[in-house]
């Protein structure tokens, strides 16, 4: 490789003579035409901001990477840049913070980057490192027969209110066979931000996951209370929702056919519900569960909303027990929860459960959880691919 080829694009630009805003404009135009910022060169990512500013930084929640990542101005231009190492296969969500005339604008998406990730709190720009590709099974496939999502309501005595939820029924849904049941916390968020319906349609079409019924359930009150080891919530899921679905739909009435899943606090709700009703769900699918604990004292750093979580997890860790047969546990390497989850893997395994633990080069976000669905659902409820020999 020549020396010129190894030099970063931003450095080649800086060395250009003369270097003025017109040259920067041409550089940026080429960049945008080629897919946009940041510039990915091997394991190096260069973030760019163009405009008047006194200070510019990249903000993110990647553990291990400096935050903020402060950009430098290319002398004599309005272009700002910073280069950092991003390992192959990584996916990072970020925003800019720009200070001008004493005023700071935060949460700005990258205007040079068309790739956005969406979540309940808005959108973020996405830095896809070398080797990361949006999985094709997350995109609409016209060949895949679409399932159906119907809205249903259940009167919950435990929660003392009507609960509306979304029910996924696979294509060719028939009453003469029995389906596995997955109950998914933060259901609307999974449908909206992980393309859950598209993912299910595609994976079922490809015989990678079993045809299944999925109940997408969202919190009805304060999520951070309802999902933090809350007895009425657990009773609702295990003693009201599951029995009603099993009675009304052709669903296998065995724990091995039932999975409870959730991410973040929804993961806490999943584990705590299974701990209260260990005979209901044979499998748990946990994505970045907020299973925060302390080994000594109570200073967990998560604020008051984590108090009941820490109390629950500490108690479980003191006396670990089987709460399911199988657990699929995944967490992003770049999120703070990676440390407790690495520890919980061992705790679950030693409690006698079969655990599949997967780390992703990603953070605490919905696209990370979307990207793990194939592996998780395919492991817990494999499709008939191994049976098909055309």
């Amino acid at each position: 490789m020549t020396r010129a080829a190894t030099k970063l694009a931003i450095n080649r630009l800086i060395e250009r003579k003369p270097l003025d805003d017109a040259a920067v404009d041409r550089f940026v135009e080429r960049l945008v035409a080629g897919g946009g910022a940041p510039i990915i060169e091997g394991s190096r990512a260069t973030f760019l901001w163009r405009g008047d500013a006194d200070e510019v930084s990249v903000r993110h929640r990647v553990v291990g990477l400096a935050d903020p990542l402060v950009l430098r101005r290319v002398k004599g231009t309005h272009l700002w840049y910073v280069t950092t190492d991003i390992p192959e296969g990584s996916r990072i969500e970020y925003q800019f913070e720009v200070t001008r005339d004493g005023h700071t604008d935060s949460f700005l998406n990258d205007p040079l980057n068309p790739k956005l990730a969406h979540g309940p709190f808005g959108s973020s720009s996405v830095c896809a490192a070398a080797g990361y590709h949006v999985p094709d099974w997350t995109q609409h496939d016209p060949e895949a027969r679409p399932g159906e999502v119907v809205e249903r309501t259940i009167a919950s005595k435990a929660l003392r209110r009507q609960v509306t939820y979304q029910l996924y029924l696979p294509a060719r849904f028939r009453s003469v066979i029995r389906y596995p049941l997955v109950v998914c916390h933060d259901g609307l968020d999974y449908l909206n931000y992980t393309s859950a319906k598209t993912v299910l349609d595609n994976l079922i079409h490809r015989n990678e996951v079993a045809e299944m019924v999925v109940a997408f359930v969202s919190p009805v009150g304060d999520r951070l209370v309802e999902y933090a080891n809350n007895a009425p919530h657990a009773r609702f899921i295990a003693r009201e929702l599951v029995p009603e679905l099993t009675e009304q739909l052709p669903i296998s009435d065995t724990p091995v056919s039932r999975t409870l899943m959730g991410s973040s606090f929804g993961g806490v709700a999943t584990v705590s519900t299974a701990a209260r009703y260990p005979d209901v769900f044979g499998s748990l699918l946990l994505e970045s569960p907020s299973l925060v604990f302390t080994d000594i004292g109570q200073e967990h750093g998560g604020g008051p909303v984590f108090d009941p979580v820490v109390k629950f997890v500490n108690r479980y860790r003191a006396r670990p027990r089987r709460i399911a047969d199988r657990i699929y546990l995944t967490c992003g390497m770049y999120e703070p929860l990676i440390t407790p989850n690495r520890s919980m893997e061992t705790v679950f395994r030693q409690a006698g459960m079969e655990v599949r633990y997967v780390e992703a080069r990603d953070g605490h976000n919905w696209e990370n959880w979307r990207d793990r669905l194939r592996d998780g659902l395919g492991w817990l409820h494999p499709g008939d691919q191994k049976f098909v020999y055309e």
Partner: protein
Amino acid sequence: MRTVLLGPQRFLTTAGTTVQSVAPEGTVATVTAGWQDREPADDELDEVMGGRSRNLRLYERLTDVLETDGHFAEQALSHRDAMDELAGIYSLRLQRALESVYAVARRPARHDIADSAFADAVRDVRDIDAWYLRTVDQLYAELEAKAPPAESEPVRRHREEVAEVLRDAAVLAVAGGHVGILLRCLRLFAVDPPQDLPVVAWSAGAMALTERVVLYNDRGPQGVQGAEVWDRGSGRVRDVVAMPHARRRLRLDDPVHTRVFVHRFAPATCLLLDDGTSVEMTADGSVPDGARVLTETGAGGGAL
């Protein structure tokens, strides 16, 4: 007894010429139950069969039985639940036993110690396979006792209709697809062709004619999982593990992998059925000399 096993027919169609050579005239009874709800989409197959095919419509018959015989359907679903539970436990035991075999096979040791450790570890796997099949038999016996097919009007009727088509047929052609569904249909409707009826079968159809159906997919989304015994086939061909799509689905370049496969299923021969393969079994249903089979060092035997 004439039985011809073929490789996949999707890209290279040899079924038509094979059937023509085995039975130049007469009705070709066909089974496309492995295609499930696409079972009736057999126009192309009929064309390949020279327009003389008659589809046994076993999947449609299965659906009819499940929809019209409530008692049978209930028992069949319970049986399937039990099979799923059994398969889960079998897989759990199997994966651990296979891990042990691979660990032993890859560990450098004095030859005699390594060989005996390997043989012993493989024996554990074979024991688990045998336990699984015994339990499968037990579950089928339970189903037969709780819902005897002879007592189900729709099953009886469909069996008679299927038998009638087979009586008039010059050859039976069994297509591939979902081998689990295919086996279920063949079993329920007692499709057991007489010895003098030639059979041509490919992919899952070929697997269904063996004594022991083995599933495998080293290149699936979950990576190498280890082959799993699934069910008994009709046993028309003997001492054979039929392996369609071997090149696409198996890591034939891993000598440890192939060695384990060969020892695990011995004395049965692992018959490789890739695109274009055509193997006429001997009169007693065994693998003929020169067929392409799996050996300890990979694929061996006759050319494609």
